[in-house]
C-alpha cells in the first residue's frame, strides 16, 4: 500500500473511532478539557506518522497505542496536578454525571486501566492489547487478573477473559 492510501486509511479509521478514542482518554484524565487535548494530539500523531503502520489490519491497534501513550505522557507531565487530585481534591473532575463505576477505575495503575478498558469495554483481543501496550500476551493476562483483583471483581463463566 502506498503512503497516500495508508494516510487515507488512518484518517478513515480515526473518523470512524474518534468517540472511542475520547472515551479511552477520558478514563485516564476524567475531565473533558484534557481528554480533548489528548485526542487532538493523538490524531495529529497518527496522521503525521501514518506511513509507519505496515499493515491495514493493524491501524486500529496502532491508534489505540498512540492514545494510551499520549494519555500516559499527559498524566506524567501533569503529575503534580493529579497528585493533588488524589487527595480528595476532585474539583477538576466533571460533575455532570455520577460516574461511580468509572471512578472505581482509579484504584488501577495506568497499565491495568488500559487492559481492563480495552478488554472489557472496547472488546479488544488480548493479543492486540499486547501489541498496544508492548507487552506479551501472558503479561497482559497477568495485568488483567491483577486489575480485576484490585476491583474485587470475579469473572463468571462465559464472560470474556474467563479462564476457569
Amino acid at each position, binding site marked *: *500500500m502506498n503512503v497516500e492510501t495508508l494516510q487515507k486509511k488512518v484518517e478513515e479509521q*480515526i473518523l470512524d473511532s474518534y468517540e472511542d478514542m475520547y472515551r479511552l482518554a477520558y478514563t485516564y484524565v476524567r475531565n473533558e478539557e484534557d481528554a480533548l487535548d489528548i485526542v*487532538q494530539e493523538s490524531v*495529529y500523531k497518527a496522521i503525521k506518522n501514518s506511513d509507519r503502520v505496515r499493515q*491495514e489490519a493493524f491501524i486500529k491497534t496502532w491508534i489505540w497505542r498512540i492514545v494510551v501513550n499520549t494519555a500516559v505522557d499527559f498524566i506524567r507531565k501533569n503529575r503534580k496536578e493529579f497528585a493533588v487530585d488524589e487527595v480528595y481534591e476532585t474539583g477538576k473532575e466533571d460533575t455532570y454525571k455520577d460516574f*461511580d463505576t468509572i471512578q472505581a477505575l482509579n484504584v488501577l495503575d495506568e497499565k491495568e486501566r488500559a487492559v481492563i478498558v480495552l478488554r472489557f469495554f472496547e472488546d479488544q483481543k488480548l493479543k492486540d492489547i499486547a*501489541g498496544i501496550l*508492548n507487552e506479551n500476551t501472558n503479561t497482559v493476562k497477568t495485568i488483567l487478573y491483577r486489575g480485576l483483583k484490585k476491583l474485587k471483581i470475579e469473572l463468571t463463566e462465559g464472560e470474556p477473559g474467563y479462564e476457569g
Partner: protein
Amino acid sequence: MKDNRLEDMKVDYKTIKIPEELRQRVDMGIEQAKKEKEEEKGMRQKSKVLVFTKRAAGGVVAALLAITIMANSGASIAHAMEQIPVIGAIAKIVTFREYENSVNDMEAKIKIPEVSIENEDGTVNQENTEKINKSIQEYTDEIIARFEADVKASGGEGYQEVDLDYSVITDNDRLFSIRFDELLVMASGTQNVKIYHIDKKTGEMINLKGIFKENTDFINVISDNIKEQMKEQMAADEMVMYWLDSETPEWNFKSITEDRTFYINEAGKLVIVFDEYEVAPGYMGSVEFEIPTEIVKDLVQEGFLQ
C-alpha cells in the same frame, strides 16, 4: 453469583458524554498533521533529497526465492574474490502463469514464474530446473489453497485480497534471486515471509547456514548485532518496539537459528527477516535487519556478500 459491576461499568463507559467540540478537535489534529507533512514534502523536493527505499510498504510481505549459483565452486572457494572465474551457469525466467479467482469481495491474483537453469554449454539443467520450479509451485499452491479454503470457510462472503507478484532482485556472479511480494488484505490475518534458497552446486536447498563457512559462530555474531540494532531503533523512535526486555523473559528475542529467514539485498548485504509477532508487536509487521558485512566477512563464504 454473577458480578454485574463490569457490565455496569461498561454501560457507564459507553455513555461517557461526547463533547460537541470533539469532532472539531479531531479535524484540527488531522489538518495540522497534513499541513506539516505537505510542508516537509515541499522542502524535500526543493533540496532534492529524495530517498528511495526498496522496503516493503504497508501490507506487503516479501518472500524471496534465491538460486545460489556456485559455479566452479570446488576450486574457486579457496581463492580470492578477483579470482572467481566466469560463471558457468545462467538462471532466467522463461515464462509465467497466472491464477485469478474472484468471488464477491474475495479476490486472488497470483503470478507463477517458470525458471530455467542452463549449464555452461547452454543446455538446460533438467534436475535443478525441475527442483526450483517445484519449490515455486509448492509455495504458490499453498497460497492458492489458503485462499480457496478461506472462500469456502466464509461461503464467499468474506473480504480478502491476495496479490502475488515477483521480480528478479539479484543477478550477479554468485546469486540469482527472485523476490515474491505477497499482498494480503483481510479483516485480520497473519503474514509470513517465505524464502527458498537452492544451492546449484548440489541441487539441494540451503538455509542461512549454507552461506557460511563450516564451524563458524555466525549465530551469536548476528544475534548480538540484531539486539544492538533493536536497542538503537527503540531509543531513537518511540513508535518502534521489539520484544527485547519485556516482563516475561521467555518471550524476548535471544538468538537466531541456523535456518533463520534471510536474503541478500541490492547492496550485497545480508538481511535477516522475522515474521510479524515473532520479535515485535503486530503493528510492526514483519521486520528486517541488515547485517553489516564487516562483522561476518571472515565467517561467510566468498561471493555472497559485499
